[in-house]
């Protein structure tokens, strides 16, 4: 059993910089949790505090049932995979993997047996006698994983392990790690700045910004029910479009007012609205895939847009356009079968049932979350 529990964990550096503010997390046994956020969000600091590489300024941290605040890394029963792999360059792959066992005083024969066991699934058997410098990037990465696996830790900590690999290798290592998690049945905590990596790998994801948890949820919920503007923009690629609007009450119900258009909210959005519409300023979010090509302007919820750039990537066509009430360029993701010319006025329809609304001041969502998993329920229920 290895839950990882963080109670009000804080980290303040001696220069007064507060890297982590009151972090509360309840990571369950065998769960794959991803810490994601931009650089400086404190995600690595949080991981390193769990590892014991960074002292904990305040709060309590438990691994299993043990309070680990003042336990050195080697006694926390964790293993860590570093961004740079941090292999020992002067040791062979075998000795790299066996090093922690050697320090524990495991006899040589037993050590090498264990090495052989972890090398097999990682396809490292052939290269056990080589030095790290003679390995490819992917192999080095697997040695780093092997070095962690051989210790049979309660918790696996991975700090941006894929960021030094090329794009293709990254995708394949993603499934290697996911498969490893299924096989080992231990708790994984994984840090990345790449939201795609987070979304594809995590059972649950902690989105961090400036040392604060923005949301801790399943990938589906982060995508469908972002708690705030930060999460909404951070998750999803291309980014969610954010527009400035006003939440007003019309005779058809609550609606969003833009300088030239008024779009009435769909019924289910209106029913999830947490506040009364009384003309307050809001941020309106809509994902590129929730924008559609429209034939005519007089359809409902349609705007006119001038296409600045069109990218055909095969499966999708991305259309970039300016919209008066948006602070930056907007993106729409169209069916590739629809040919769109660049530098042209086109009509774009908003799917008003997929809209997100955030308070202008607090940037917190003004919509109640809805049940995203309509078909089948995920094994792990979301706790916030």
């Amino acid at each position: 059993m290895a839950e990882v529990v963080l109670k009000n964990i804080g980290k303040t550096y001696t220069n007064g910089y507060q890297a982590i503010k009151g972090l509360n997390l309840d990571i369950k046994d065998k769960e794959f949790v991803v810490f994601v956020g931009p650089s400086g969000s404190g995600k690595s600091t949080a991981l390193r505090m769990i590892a014991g590489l960074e002292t904990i300024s305040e709060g309590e941290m438990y691994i299993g049932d043990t309070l680990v605040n003042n336990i050195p890394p080697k006694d926390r029963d964790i293993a860590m995979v570093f961004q740079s792999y941090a292999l020992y360059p002067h040791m062979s792959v075998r000795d790299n993997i066996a090093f922690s066992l050697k320090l524990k005083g495991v006899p040589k024969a037993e050590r090498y047996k264990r090495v052989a066991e972890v090398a097999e699934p990682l396809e490292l058997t052939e290269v056990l006698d080589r030095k790290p410098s003679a390995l490819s990037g992917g192999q080095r990465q697997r040695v780093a994983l092997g070095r962690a696996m051989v210790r049979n830790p309660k918790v696996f900590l991975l700090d941006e392990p894929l960021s030094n690999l090329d794009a293709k290798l990254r995708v394949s290592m993603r499934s290697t790690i996911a498969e490893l998690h299924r096989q080992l049945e231990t708790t994984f905590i994984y840090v990345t700045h790449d939201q795609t990596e987070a979304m594809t790998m995590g059972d649950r994801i902690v989105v961090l910004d400036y040392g604060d948890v923005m949301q801790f949820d399943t990938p589906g919920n982060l995508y469908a029910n972002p708690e705030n503007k930060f999460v909404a923009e951070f998750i999803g690629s291309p980014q969610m479009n954010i527009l400035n609007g006003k939440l007003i009450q019309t005779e058809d119900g609550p609606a969003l007012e833009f300088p030239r258009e008024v779009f009435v909210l769909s019924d289910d959005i209106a029913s999830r609205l947490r506040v009364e519409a009384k003309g307050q300023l809001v941020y309106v979010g809509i994902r590129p895939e929730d924008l559609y090509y429209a034939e005519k302007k007089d359809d409902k919820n349609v705007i006119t847009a001038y296409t600045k750039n069109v990218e055909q990537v095969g499966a999708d066509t991305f259309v970039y356009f300016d919209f008066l009430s948006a602070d930056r360029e907007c993106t729409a993701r169209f069916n590739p079968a629809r040919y769109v010319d660049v530098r042209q006025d086109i009509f774009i329809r908003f799917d008003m049932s997929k809209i997100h609304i955030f308070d202008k001041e607090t940037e917190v969502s003004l919509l109640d979350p809805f049940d995203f998993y309509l078909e089948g329920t995920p094994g792990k229920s979301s706790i916030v």
Partner: protein
Amino acid sequence: MEKSDIKIIEEEKSFKQKLQPWGYLLPTIVILTIFMFIPFFQTIIRSLFFTDNFGKMQNFIGFGNYIELLTSSSFWNSVWVSFRFVLIVVLVGVVLGFVSALLTQKAFPGLAFFSTSYATPMAIASVGMALIFQVMLNPSVGIINKILGAHGNMLADPGKALIIVAILTAWLNSGMNYLYFSSGLASISDSQYEAASIDGANGFQQFMYITVPALRPTTFFVIVTNIINAFQSFGQINILTKGGPGEATNVIVFDIYREAFMNYRYGFASAESVILFLIILALTILMFYIRSKGGKVQ
């Protein structure tokens, strides 16, 4: 979760953890304290005292030693000799090292042999080299007189003696200078020369507009270390000239040695040591000041 049931656990460092860094630094702290810091302050204190033949401080005379020093023509002679000595050492040493580096800038068969040779003066003792020079300059059998067809003892000539010990010192420094210059040259990327040759620069122009500016920081560094080294030259002077003839090669370090260990005037020599320290300190600061100004212009 209630805030109240969260204990704030302060990070604790055990006594052992707190002590640990000092354990690693113990030899350094002990040795530097005993053999650097204490002697350094003792030198300053001793310089304010009149000392007996065993170095015991007899009576406090304030700046007496300094006043005596600064009013003695012998000391000013030492300063002047040191200044000329350092000048020759730096000039000759820089030229020797720089020419060697230029000659080995491009690859050719046998490069490894030549570059190792040019660096070897680093490994040569001042004593050994001084003894070789002694034989080379021997009035009756030395090669130098035979080549020049001369008969006199050059080391007995006040003008030549200083030049000879300075050239010897420059030679000793040339190996180190060579290494610095050639690593400076190696850090200039080939593409700069290629771009220049495509732009139509000939060999000399490439040297003037690429090599020389790129080596400016290296040259600065070499000059500073050479000056500091030169001020500390002792072995070659003690063996070849003992400060003579007359006081023609009586550089400050040798004068300190003479006053302290031949005349047993420890307090007086300490005052001279302090002045030597101040001269080197001032020169170092001056050089860095010049460089920081030069750096801004660029």
